């Protein structure tokens, strides 16, 4: 029983991170109809830039905010330079460009910050807490808190602000949105910035546990993508559900079958979902519902 609880905690910890990355996939997909394969690199940049700003002597909260803002800015610039010039916004070309962009961002991080794994201090020092006999690292609580905060802020932005409604409107019907004065192109830029910020939050939150490194983006990209597909692309609720579920599946596989199979779970899940239920577990009609 204690063992199961421990697995569940680990699963929900990783699952929260996957959920944030999956949300990034979902947001860009809603705006462009394309998969942004650079999403994992935004996760990587969050951790690396967090270490970088902390290394400059900034206190951790400020370093975290700076890293999130810088990653969001990189996301926006990436869209402006590489995605916006694509004629007609063809999703297939956007996908190709994001694959190229992911390689570029990874190599740039390698040259700027070096090949080493870089440590980041835990957000709060101290021993693990006990929860019903299971140990919970303090950083895990931070991960849950930050994920919850990011999801709530995103929901409020989408549901309760004029800007968020304009983003949803653009993803539903681009021409009609332009007709009522919405700058549809700016909405695509904003979606990349927002997706990058969410990736950065995930990268920062997990860096004290795993260390930051230039090469962690690709693996996380696969996990986040699998989570988004598992839940059903197009809905934020589905992305969060898919992320948590993938985390739990991995953790239970590692605990009860073999830790070696942990990373294979995401790929198996991806294949099974695509074969059996391409719209995902929580995606209804396959239409975008932000």
């Amino acid at each position, binding site marked *: 029983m204690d063992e199961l609880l421990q697995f569940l905690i680990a699963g929900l910890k990783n699952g929260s991170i996957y959920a944030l990355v999956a949300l990034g996939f979902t947001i860009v997909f809603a705006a462009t109809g394309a998969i942004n394969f650079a999403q994992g690199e935004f996760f990587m940049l969050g951790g690396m830039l967090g270490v970088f700003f902390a290394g400059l002597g900034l206190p951790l909260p400020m370093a975290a905010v700076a890293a999130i803002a810088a990653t969001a800015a990189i996301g926006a610039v990436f869209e402006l330079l590489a995605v916006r010039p694509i004629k007609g916004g063809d999703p297939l070309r956007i996908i190709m460009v994001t694959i190229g962009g992911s390689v570029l961002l990874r190599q740039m991080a390698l040259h700027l910050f070096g090949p080493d794994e870089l440590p980041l201090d835990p957000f709060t020092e101290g021993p693990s807490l006990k929860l019903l006999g299971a140990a919970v690292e303090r950083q895990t609580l931070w991960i849950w808190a930050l994920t919850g905060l990011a999801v709530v802020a995103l929901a409020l932005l989408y549901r309760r602000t004029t800007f968020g409604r304009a983003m949803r409107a653009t993803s539903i019907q681009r*021409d009609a949105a332009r*007709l009522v004065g919405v700058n549809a192109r700016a909405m695509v830029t904003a979606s990349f910035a927002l997706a990058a910020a969410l990736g950065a939050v995930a990268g920062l939150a997990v860096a004290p546990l795993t260390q930051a490194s230039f090469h962690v983006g690709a693996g996380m990209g696969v996990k986040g993508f699998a989570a988004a597909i598992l839940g059903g692309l197009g809905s934020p609720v589905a992305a969060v559900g898919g992320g948590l579920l993938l985390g739990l599946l991995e953790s239970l596989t590692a605990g009860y079958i073999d830790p070696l199979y942990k990373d294979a779970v995401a790929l198996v899940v991806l294949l099974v979902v695509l074969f059996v239920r391409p719209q995902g577990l929580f995606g209804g009609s396959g239409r975008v519902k932000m």
Partner: protein
Amino acid sequence: MSLLQVRKVTKRFGGLTAVDDVSFDVFEGTIKALIGPNGAGKSTLFNALTGFDRPDSGSVVFAGAELVGRRPRDTVRAGVARTFQNTQLFDELTAGENVMVGRQARQRRGFTAALLRLPSALAEDRDARAEAGRLLRLIGIEEWVDVPAADLPAGIRRLVEIARALATGPRLLLLDEPAAGLNATESRELVQTLYRVRDAGITVVIVEHHMGLVMEVSDEIVVLDRGRKIAEGPPRMIQKDPAVIAAYLGEGGDDDD
């Protein structure tokens, strides 16, 4: 002083001149109708007025500013709103949310501001809701505010689209066949709505096939035939105009009435 001055607008598609040297004025606070047989160039002219199509020559001056060459978004921001023949609502949003999207046109608040100043963006949202409610009341459909657009009856969808156009804060509202597909009751409600919109100080231009509605609601009518303006004047005059009668009879009569 006219609010909208259309001068010598011409639009060709290949060998076809869809709109041929058309000029007219729209005076502030009036309802003006564009009518004509099918293929007369009404929708093409409409698109030219709102930046969706650039005319080959001519000018469209709204409140002293040239509209030709502007993007649809900038036309909206200048104070010209329009609806389409086939209603384009955001189906996954509620009627109220659809109307609130129109507000974006009047806002300079960008993404960064919305995110960094989420509390103030949320506070502003109360105004947006109140305004959406007010506009839906003006149109007379406030009871539909929380219904997803996909579930609205056709007549109500049309009216929601008008409310959404009004949310952009226009001085001029262009309606492309607002009565198409409406039953008699809905058409009567539409007439009342148009009066209320005009009485709220908004100038209206409609393209419409439904002749009864046009004759009832318009202050002035422009008649197009094969791209050319063949008549202009108040409804009573247009009804007796020999050129207009010939144009409609020549086509086998009006297909809607």
